[in-house]
């Protein structure tokens, strides 16, 4: 562990894992937290799913969404990925002095609309204002509670032969936000995919134990999430690049910026690992649900390269995919 925290520690890749494992878990670890799923399952008369997430996106308005919608969808999605039906959220605002009230009004209206669409109630909240220069306009934390509907989802269930599905196009959010930061490259055609995934997840819950795990590949992208599925197991994941849905605009933007869609954040896509027998059914369930129209089977699990993710390129060659090492940076030329 290094002596200071850098932006890379927040990138969702290897450095984030190292921060959690070396600095946070040694002090706070317990059986519930140590699972490190998208959300925690709390045992009780009725099992609860509990999660929290903080949102610091810059700029706070971006094509396809804003920090308010993101803050609601992000926590709703974490609960849904753990098999929960999201019910209640908290919403805590950290506002920088000088934020236009109109911007705040828009962010809050957007959060309210997202909550309504996702069927959750914002039940509690908090507001703090920090001095000018001590925030980036607005930061939001949300926490959420849902009821457990699909117990036992975990990478531990994955077996050779299983199929990997994605609910739609990859890399939209990360690319849209990166472009929104560059005045040169603003494009109206590129939008964040920010959306609540609870309906898509619930469509898959009907598969029961044939649904092995769900994850929303946010920071670190699809590649990093697949690496998390394979690491420390006897399984390897084989990804077929040809079947990976990527919008042409996203591919072009990534080419220009030197990014890889597989490592760009998504905010409205889920990855599902499903038994081979029910993979087609799962695909039909996703395609039949709003937001899942572009779903695809993108790979399978085997045991040829334990612990690794292998991508088959359109040329028929293979390459290894590793976890994101640090934040993706635009390149020189």
């Amino acid at each position, binding site marked *: 562990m290094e002596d200071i925290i850098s*932006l890379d520690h927040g990138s969702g890749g290897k450095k984030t894992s190292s921060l959690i494992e070396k600095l946070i878990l040694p002090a706070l670890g317990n059986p519930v937290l140590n699972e490190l799923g998208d959300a925690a399952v709390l045992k009780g008369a009725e099992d609860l799913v509990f999660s929290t997430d903080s949102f610091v996106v810059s700029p706070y308005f971006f094509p396809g969404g804003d920090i308010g919608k993101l803050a609601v969808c992000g926590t709703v999605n974490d609960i849904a990925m753990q098999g929960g039906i999201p019910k209640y959220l908290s919403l805590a605002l950290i506002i920088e002095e000088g934020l236009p009230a109109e911007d705040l009004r828009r962010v809050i209206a957007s959060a309210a609309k997202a909550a309504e669409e996702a069927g959750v109630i914002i039940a509690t909240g908090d507001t703090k204002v920090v001095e000018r220069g001590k925030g980036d306009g607005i930061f939001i934390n949300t926490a959420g509670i849902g009821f457990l509907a699909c117990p036992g989802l975990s990478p531990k269930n994955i077996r050779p032969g299983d199929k990997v599905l994605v609910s739609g196009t990859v890399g939209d959010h990360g690319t849209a936000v990166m472009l929104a930061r560059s005045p040169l490259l603003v494009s109206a055609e590129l939008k964040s995919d920010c959306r609540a995934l609870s309906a898509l997840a619930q469509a898959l819950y009907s598969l029961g134990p044939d649904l092995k795990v769900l994850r929303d590949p946010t920071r670190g992208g699809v590649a990093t999430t697949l690496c998390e599925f394979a690491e420390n197991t006897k399984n390897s994941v084989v990804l077929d690049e040809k079947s990976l849905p990527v919008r042409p605009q996203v591919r072009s933007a990534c080419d220009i910026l030197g990014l890889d869609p597989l490592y760009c954040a998504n905010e409205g896509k889920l990855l599902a690992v499903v038994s081979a027998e029910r993979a087609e059914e799962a695909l039909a369930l996703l395609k039949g649900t709003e937001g899942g129209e572009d779903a695809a089977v993108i790979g399978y699990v085997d045991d040829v390269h334990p612990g690794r993710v292998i991508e088959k390129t359109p040329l028929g060659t293979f*390459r290894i995919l590793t976890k994101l090492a640090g934040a993706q940076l635009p390149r*020189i030329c």
Partner: protein
Amino acid sequence: MYKLMEVCGTHTMAIARAGIRQLLPDNVKLISGPGCPVCVTDQSEIDAVLSLSERKDVIVCCYGDMLRIPGSERGDSLAKRISRGARAEIVFSPADALDIARAEPDKQVVFLGIGFETTAPGTAMAVKLAKERGIENFSLLCLLKRVEPALRALAAGPDFDIDGFLCPGHVAVITGAEAFRFIAEDLRLPAVVSGFEPEDIIRSCSMLLAQIREGRAELENQYTRAVRPFGNPLALAVMDEVLEPSDCLMRGMGIIPGGGFSLRKGYAAFDAKERFGLELKDVPEPAGCLCGQVIQGKAEPSSCPLFGRTCVPEDPVGPCMVSSEGSCAAAYKYGRN
């Protein structure tokens, strides 16, 4: 064994990403050349950038690639300095740095001009605009490099052993394909200007191998959809107006005569080296690091004792492991095993 050298770092990445080596016959080898701009930047210059970033009145503007390039002290980089409070901004274009300079008139904005002829015109244009518009708090730390002298120096080395060059398509968009004719005529080796899609690269390799088989040493242009014989006249004109060739340092290769660019006299006021009295301190390569050899195609990333052990992308020892065009980064990311 036929050894083909891809000169451009973007080719290196594309080759690794598409797994093109897996498709080549066993007796054909692709070797990465000195085409990754931040990798060829001398350690003394990286260190000078890092010390410049410590000045409270300075905002360093650079491309994203520069952020993680390690300083000579282990763990040091621009990214680390930012975490400690230095101001450095990632820009997508040198023109963005001019905007920052105008928005913050009480700061000194220094643009790090890195790259080969691909980025030189944009960099030159920014300096020209700064002069025209009187943006006096802008300056350029000119670390730009020229491809031809680098390749000539490489070919003049005692252990040079390459059978053909895959020439950088992006550079050739600016300079024109003819800028690579010296490879065929002076070095007597096959040269093919190549595009960057996997199919472009495979086609270019095949063109090089055909030349080798037929005993030809010619300049051919595979990337005709983007590269013209004499390049982009507007880009060349602004380069020529603002910049002039000068000797430069390249990592592992020492001083390359005419290998870099400096600002011409009329633009000398925008030279960050002069403005801040930057001194280059000779520093040894990090112990065990083979970047200087890797850049010249004399060592493979996996032959470096540090590769994948003490030198990894999240904690690099040498620049080749972190640049998005670095050979070690490509080898680490896309296939160690």
